[in-house]
């Protein structure tokens, strides 16, 4: 509902990513290092203007968790020539919507406007790429806003706190284990200077991608980008991201998160998994197909069919894969049992069904249905211009190329049932995983039915 949201990466997303070949997509690099992607879609007189920075929460200095997201908020607080809030006011006065999001790997800003307003949006984005400026009257209340944001989206939700604890447990060294919004005690100490230091270290054309999608002519769009961003010099402070990496994982981890606000207890498990790699997405594609077969449908996927429909012990059961990250992907399995089935029994059933699937192999009819939906998703995906823009922005931010995006459907179609079973063997090895129970405090169990 509210803009400038925190984007917790699509951890539980079941959606297959949807690239598109049909419409022209071009990619250019300006002399100052700025990458430009233009996606033409002339159906409606609307355009999306996005600027992505290849920096996120995983690049924060120790002790300053949340600074990337705090900076994202402060990017709306003015420049040398624009007053606080003026950016959004101008977008609004032009009938547009603007928003921004921070992830571990990237920070993105975008506006959706009538296509004859594109120049103005670019001019303002180019301005705040290098001229950010604000005073105490802006940043101090904004720090309270992000603390309220943490209260609302994390601390008021048991499921979100559980997820935070899961990630903190899965990652031993890599900063994907630190919440994007930050730890509260560190957020409370963030300052304007820290934000400006982070800005000067990471923002600049040589660490950014502009994505223009919608009612534009490709050549005209490129001219505009060159006009507004072309003269900004590359930022010499920008370095290749250097992040801690994970040591070998030799022991599985387990946790229990108890909270009186839990209405439906469940088991969740996260495995470290490979990411989509530039030029070689076959492993990631096999994991994506595995997730679709295990959990991609609320009725016919392997986990739902067996645990919900056949055995009746699950309210729902799920599987998903996220390979859209720079350093580590994740595979997710979970089950919410029906009343009367304990979490340990539910977990055992989940593991049994996964093992049986890997033993027995893929049902050819189900495999064909999933493939057909992959192809259909490509067509449906063309309807969502902003979604396509976002897809290219994420991909380029994490080190993939245009070819990787346009080749993703082909990579999925190339997966064989044997590839799926081979990829699935990783689910039998829990050393690089964390399993969590989200449940009531034990003394509340008896109150479950009456409340």
């Amino acid at each position, binding site marked *: 509902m509210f803009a400038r949201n925190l984007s917790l990466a699509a951890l539980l997303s079941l959606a297959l990513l949807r690239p598109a070949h049909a419409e022209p997509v071009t990619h250019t690099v300006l002399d100052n290092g700025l990458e430009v992607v233009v996606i033409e879609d002339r159906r409606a007189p609307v355009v999306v203007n996005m600027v992505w920075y290849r920096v996120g929460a995983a690049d924060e200095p120790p002790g300053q968790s949340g600074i990337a997201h705090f900076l994202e908020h402060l990017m709306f607080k003015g420049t040398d020539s624009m007053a606080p809030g003026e950016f959004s006011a101008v977008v609004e006065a032009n009938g547009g919507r603007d928003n921004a999001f921070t992830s571990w790997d990237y920070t993105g800003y975008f506006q959706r406007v009538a296509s004859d307003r594109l120049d103005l949006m670019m001019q303002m984005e180019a301005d705040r790429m290098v001229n950010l400026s604000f005073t105490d009257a802006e940043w101090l209340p904004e720090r309270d806003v992000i603390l309220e944001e943490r209260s*609302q989206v994390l601390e008021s939700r048991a499921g979100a706190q559980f997820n935070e604890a899961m990630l903190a447990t899965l990652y031993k060294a890599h900063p994907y284990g630190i919440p994007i919004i930050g730890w509260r005690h560190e957020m409370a100490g963030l300052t304007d200077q820290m934000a400006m230091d982070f800005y000067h270290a990471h923002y600049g054309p040589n660490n950014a991608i502009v994505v223009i999608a919608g009612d534009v002519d490709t050549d005209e769009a490129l001219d505009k980008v060159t006009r507004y961003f072309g003269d900004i010099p590359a930022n010499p402070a920008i370095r290749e991201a250097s992040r801690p990496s994970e040591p070998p994982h030799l022991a599985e981890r387990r946790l229990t998160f108890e909270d009186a606000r839990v*209405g439906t207890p469940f088991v969740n498990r996260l495995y470290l998994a490979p990411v989509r790699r530039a030029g070689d997405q076959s492993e990631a594609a096999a994991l994506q197909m595995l997730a679709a077969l295990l959990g991609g449908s609320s009725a016919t996927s392997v986990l739902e069919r067996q645990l919900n429909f056949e055995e009746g012990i699950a309210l729902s059961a799920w599987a998903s894969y996220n390979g859209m990250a720079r350093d580590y992907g994740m595979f997710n399995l979970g089950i919410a049992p029906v009343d009367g089935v304990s979490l340990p029994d539910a977990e055992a059933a989940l593991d049994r069904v996964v093992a049986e699937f890997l033993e027995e192999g893929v049902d050819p009819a189900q495999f064909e249905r999933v493939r057909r939906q992959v192809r259909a998703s490509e*067509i449906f995906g063309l309807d969502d211009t902003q979604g396509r823009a976002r897809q290219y922005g994420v991909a380029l931010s994490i080190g993939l190329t245009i070819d990787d995006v346009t080749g993703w459907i082909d990579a999925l179609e190339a997966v064989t049932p044997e590839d799926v079973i081979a990829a699935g063997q990783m689910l039998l090895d829990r050393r690089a995983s964390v399993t969590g129970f989200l449940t009531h405090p034990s003394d509340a169990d008896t109150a*479950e039915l009456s*409340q």
Partner: protein
Amino acid sequence: MKRLITLFFLIAAPLRAEVDITPVTSPSGLNAWLVEERSIPFVSLELIFAGGATVEPDEQAGVVSLMTSLLDEGAGELDAQAYATRTEELAARLRFESGRDTVTVSARFLTEDADAVIDHLRLALTEPRFDEDAIARVRGQMLAKLRRDALDPNTLASRAFARAAFDGHPYAREVDGTLETVAALDRDALVNAHQGAIARDRVYIGAAGDIDAESLGELIDRLFDSIPDEGAPMPEPVAFQADAGLDIIPFDGPQSVVAFGHAGIARDDPEFLTAFVVNEIFGGGRFGTRLMRTLREERGLTYGIGSFLSSGLLGHSYQGRLSTDNANVEIVLDLLREEWAKIARDGVTEQELERIVTYLTGAYPLRFDGNSSIASIMASMQYQGFDVDYVNVRNDMIRALTLDEVNDLAARLFDPEALVFVVVGQPVGLN
């Protein structure tokens, strides 16, 4: 950067929505609005059935919701698994949703499979099986959701507000019923709810994508071939009746959720559009509103605050929501009362009106982004009683509003003495 704004006001030419709507009447007499868009080979279809949960009896609260969830859990010769399998074979996306006032069916399908998908969808709408095992399974999911809702401060606040506002009317009920009513629902109740909620006399149809008017008319008749003409009678309208004051519902957590508001304005009131504009200035759920400026930007008291006109078929209210740390609730309530009194007394400024008119008229075309959004808007506009040319005159109507009209409406809508507050949390300093 003042020159940017100057630049804008010079270039801001009115933008037409450029949506070309074709009204379609099927051979059997059903009406639909179509926006043809042939560049991508698929069709989006949206059906809105008016009535929703309001047509169910008190003791069967939740039955329309459970019924709607069961429509694709087995139909005709196909059990739940077979139905879902067939949907996947057709690569169709079908969604069945119910709410307080409506049951909504959304379908997306490839052009090449249109007839087969319509036959498949017709099974769900006309021959749902309501198998006992499916009922048990989906009921279990619904009961689990009710248990979660009972622990969700946002849901608790909304429920308490609705109970106070519309006591004794279907609008006071929870759309998903209660643990008791849902546990007691049987197959007969579901069959009745199906006959009452899915009927030709209450459907509004929107379509967009790769299809022409004639084909759409045929496709609609194919879909509605055996759907009954009449559904259950609609309940009487209801007036907003909550007394002004503060209701605190204790709940553990770092924040309180605050629901606030009072009576609103009817959807068919000639001044509804004026009220919509005033609310966009005051608290319409984006940046730049008075409420966001006062509570978030100037004071950091909340991550977000929004207000909205809730104008249903049978009654209306004007409400808002926010979350804030427990220590802040008292000051937040004071600020809300102040803002309420201020806009009732002084109205809005010429500059605020100018800005919002530019924003609203510029943003309108952005809504029509893609076949799925367009199909949904087409059905919704008919449901809300708009003429087919509304899309083309709506911006002119907004531009024609005068400051006096807007401020007269503000004085009529905002009543600080009538404010109802529901606080779910552990607010400090209030009792």
